């Protein structure tokens, strides 16, 4: 109500922790090899989410999305995440 809020676009990248086995990545790599792409030595499969979020400023947007990741978007037992906030959009 008080401070004017702006729209931010947040990109969230979720990947499996390094030590966790990634069958999906292995499957994709095998699929690529079958198609002849032998130059691919590794594939890791993850998730990508695009959020539209309102916040007073970029720091606030980042803090808020980080919290969403910790609480819901990411399973921190096996996954890790990275958030990047893109240019604010006109509201």
């Amino acid at each position, binding site marked *: 109500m008080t401070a004017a809020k702006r729209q931010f676009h947040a990109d969230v990248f979720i990947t499996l922790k390094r*030590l*966790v*086995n990634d*069958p*999906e990545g292995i*499957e994709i790599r095998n699929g690529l090899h079958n198609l002849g792409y032998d130059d691919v030595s590794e594939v890791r499969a993850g998730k990508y989410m695009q959020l539209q979020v309102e916040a007073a400023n970029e720091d606030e947007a980042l803090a808020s999305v980080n919290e969403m990741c910790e609480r*819901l*978007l990411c*399973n921190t*037992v*096996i996954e890790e995440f990275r958030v990047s906030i893109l240019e604010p959009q006109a509201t």
Partner: protein
Amino acid sequence: MKFGVVTFPGSNGDHDALSAVEYGLGEEVAPVWHKSTSVDGFDALLVPGGFSYGDYLRGGAIARFSPIMGAVAEFAAAGKPVLGICNGFQILTEAGLLPGTLMKNPSLSFVCDWVDVRVDSDRTPFTRGIDIGTVLRLPIAHGQGSYYIDTDGLDELKRNEQIIFTYTDRAGVETPESNPNGSVANIAGVSNGPGNVVGLMPHPERAFDAVLGGDDGLRLLGAVLGAATKEAITA
């Protein structure tokens, strides 16, 4: 004894759990809607299988924040019996009530089958009175059932006797072939530290009548009755 079946939007094993208790065990049972905030009056809770919230994001990820989960956590903390089946197992791990997590099957596809499961501990209310080493035949039906825990966690599970069910062959020996989903150490089900909260991927509630291919599931669901009586006596 009164069972509660905690039902989320997208749960689909709730009907089976209700039937198994009502017709299989002949005990009192009622659904508990996820928007409710109380589990008063129940002696044991079943968190059934299904696709709560469509399994979007990850199985159990959204359901664990449902209003009812606070009451479930309190119920568990009070040492009362809670059994998470399949998606219910996922929900309990997401909620931190059980250790480890469940990942996509390495085959990347859903698997529906009957498997042999060995009972490894009788310290939980759902296995009390069942001889350790007993092999039960139970259905599985899941796409995200590969139990994962890091090595330290696994050691701790072993130390505390928290591995409750293991996928084995008919003879009770764990083999790579008898592991349907790449679970660490063939683990099919675990408990929390005290042992009153148990989760497993196989479906005891679908195995309550010989005409369906087996009724071994009733032994697990029924064990809690004996457990309750025992506690009442010792209390």
